[in-house]
């Protein structure tokens, strides 16, 4: 069945996104405008934009899907996504803003002037992470399109890539900030509306005590994850958020370190409010959506309206969800495309505006191809793996780089390579293993609990072995990172 409303919602979201982007175009003129909106974005705008950018396919569709599949354990994912922001606030927000870097490779270079090697390795890791993160967005787009509209799935990734290319190429970061601030509130609304409709429809049923008592049984019937898995996921999400390239690029648009902290605190509130909705919808999905399996659990929110309502109302509510879902794919992908294009163009095109545009096309085209050639895992699980990877690579570089003056470039390189190799190989290996729950398979499937400490230990030990390599300007850089700005009273 082709749902006309859903197609309309999709077109509307894409058009609005592009219109706001073109409005931003008039404001951006210099390279600095393109990259970081000239650092003049207010905390509320910036917080909405961060929320808009961060809430990806995994949050919008994946959280409810995971709650349907793994019950109570699925609730740890949104907690981790939010608590990760607290970690970012504690360790990274203000110093990173003061570092005056555009991208993570820039930070590596500011901290270790002499090491071209470190900068290159960081760039390649950022590129890998961005691509790994975009692919699930494309899978989400394909799933949404095929389930909600009946059109062939491959059109979804193409639409997302085209709109993202146009928005990013035309306006750069300035327009991306506007687009994403808008998209946070749009995504929130797109979940609030169906949640309220469904709740008002079904709540009267539970005035019957027997019906109400049955809920607990249904919720508890789903098997939950083991303690090791839970802890590993918590660690991956907490430390992985620190290293997400598209999230970090947002901090450069705050005027001061103090403003960066205010922004992050607002983000914590926005995320907490948002995640109540996919959680509620996940619970409703367990109770009402029939025939969900591992292959279509991510579509829970898309299928829920039709399980509760009939006819036009169900079509309309589905259309609202489709609009929100596409807003999620578009915002996250454009954020990733900006930081990916920033890294690529600085590395290969000397950071010109033209290079930035070429890089944007490269940044979105390659994940589309990968997404069309591979099949979708559980969205939130796939994103969880990316978090584990960033937690084992970029996160130790940032944490030790910001807080430990004895870190050396050699140590940073060794630690990141150790983390990347161990985490990457474990994830690859687990995808080839039979899907049983023996402890060793779990260790490979959720590597963060051991690969993150490993990366930190290697980084510290190798740095200790090369004390003469501590940069001579380390005191100046540390002062730059931590001393509050003059303008701040």
């Amino acid at each position, binding site marked *: 069945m082709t749902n006309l409303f859903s197609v309309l919602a999709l077109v509307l979201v894409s058009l609005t996104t592009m219109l706001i982007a073109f409005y931003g175009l008039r404001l951006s003129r210099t390279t600095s405008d393109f990259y970081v909106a000239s650092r003049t974005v207010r905390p509320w705008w910036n917080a909405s934009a961060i929320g808009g950018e961060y809430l990806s396919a995994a949050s919008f569709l994946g959280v409810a899907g995971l709650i349907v599949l793994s019950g109570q354990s699925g*609730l740890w994912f949104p907690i981790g996504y939010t608590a990760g922001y607290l970690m970012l606030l504690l360790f990274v927000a203000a110093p990173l803003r003061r570092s005056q870097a555009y991208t993570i490779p820039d930070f590596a270079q500011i901290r270790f002037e002499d090491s071209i090697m470190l900068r290159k390795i960081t760039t390649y890791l950022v590129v890998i992470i961005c691509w790994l993160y975009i692919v699930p967005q494309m899978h989400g787009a394909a799933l949404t399109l095929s389930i909600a509209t009946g059109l062939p799935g491959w059109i979804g990734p193409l639409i997302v890539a085209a709109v993202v290319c146009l928005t990013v190429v035309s306006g750069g970061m300035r327009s991306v900030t506007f687009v994403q601030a808008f998209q946070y509130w749009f995504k929130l609304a797109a979940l609030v509306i169906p949640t309220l409709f469904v709740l008002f429809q079904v709540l009267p049923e539970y005035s019957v005590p027997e019906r109400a008592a049955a809920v607990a049984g249904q919720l508890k019937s789903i098997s939950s994850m083991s303690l090791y898995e839970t802890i590993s996921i918590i660690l991956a999400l907490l430390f992985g958020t620190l290293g997400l390239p598209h999230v970090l690029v947002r901090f450069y648009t705050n005027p001061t370190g103090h403003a960066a902290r205010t922004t992050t605190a607002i983000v914590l509130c926005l995320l907490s409010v948002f995640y109540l909705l996919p959680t509620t919808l996940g619970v409703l999905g367990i109770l009402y959506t029939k025939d969900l399996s591992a292959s279509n659990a991510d579509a829970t929110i898309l299928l829920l309206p039709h399980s509760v309502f009939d006819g036009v109302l169900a079509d309309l509510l589905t259309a609202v969800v489709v609009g929100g879902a596409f807003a999620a794919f578009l915002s996250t992908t454009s954020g990733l495309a900006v930081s990916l294009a920033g890294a690529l163009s600085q590395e290969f095109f000397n950071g010109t505006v033209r290079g930035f545009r070429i890089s944007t096309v490269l940044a979105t085209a390659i994940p589309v191809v990968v997404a069309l050639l591979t099949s979708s895992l559980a969205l939130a699980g796939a994103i969880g793996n990316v978090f584990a990877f960033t937690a084992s690579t970029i996160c130790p570089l940032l944490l030790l780089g910001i807080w430990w003056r004895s870190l050396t470039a050699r140590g940073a390189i060794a630690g990141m390579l150790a983390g990347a190799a161990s985490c990457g190989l474990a994830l690859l290996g687990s995808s080839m293993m039979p899907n049983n729950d023996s402890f060793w398979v779990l260790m490979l499937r959720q590597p963060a609990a051991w690969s993150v400490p490993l990366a930190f230990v290697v980084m510290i030990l190798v740095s200790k072995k090369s004390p003469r390599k501590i940069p001579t300007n380390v005191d100046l850089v540390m002062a730059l990172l931590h001393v509050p700005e003059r303008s701040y009273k």
Partner: protein
Amino acid sequence: MSEPLGRFAQQRPQRVRVQAPQDASLDIPATRPEQSAENFYVRQLISSQLRLAVAVAAGLLIMLVGISAILVFWPVVSQIMLFNIPLPWWILGVGIYPLIIIAGLLYNRAATRNERRYRSISR
């Protein structure tokens, strides 16, 4: 020359030979005294900010890991019902978020206080 013996021997400092550096590039530190005082204050600022951040992060980690352990080793909690939904669902789905926000706000206040203290003693 006789071997030094007795308890004074341990107290006598090691003999150090003083000589001019072998290469010509004598490394005289360029820092003026006020600069090294500044450095000292910056290091104090960094370590007080780090202590604060680690304390909050440790609290968060202990809370999250603690809750997940309690749910595994003490499943009785799941028998408690609130509006017909098991208590763990309320804790994980709703209860933790306000704690995260409060931790963030408290941290912001303390970090700003540290910076203000630094501003008042440096300069």
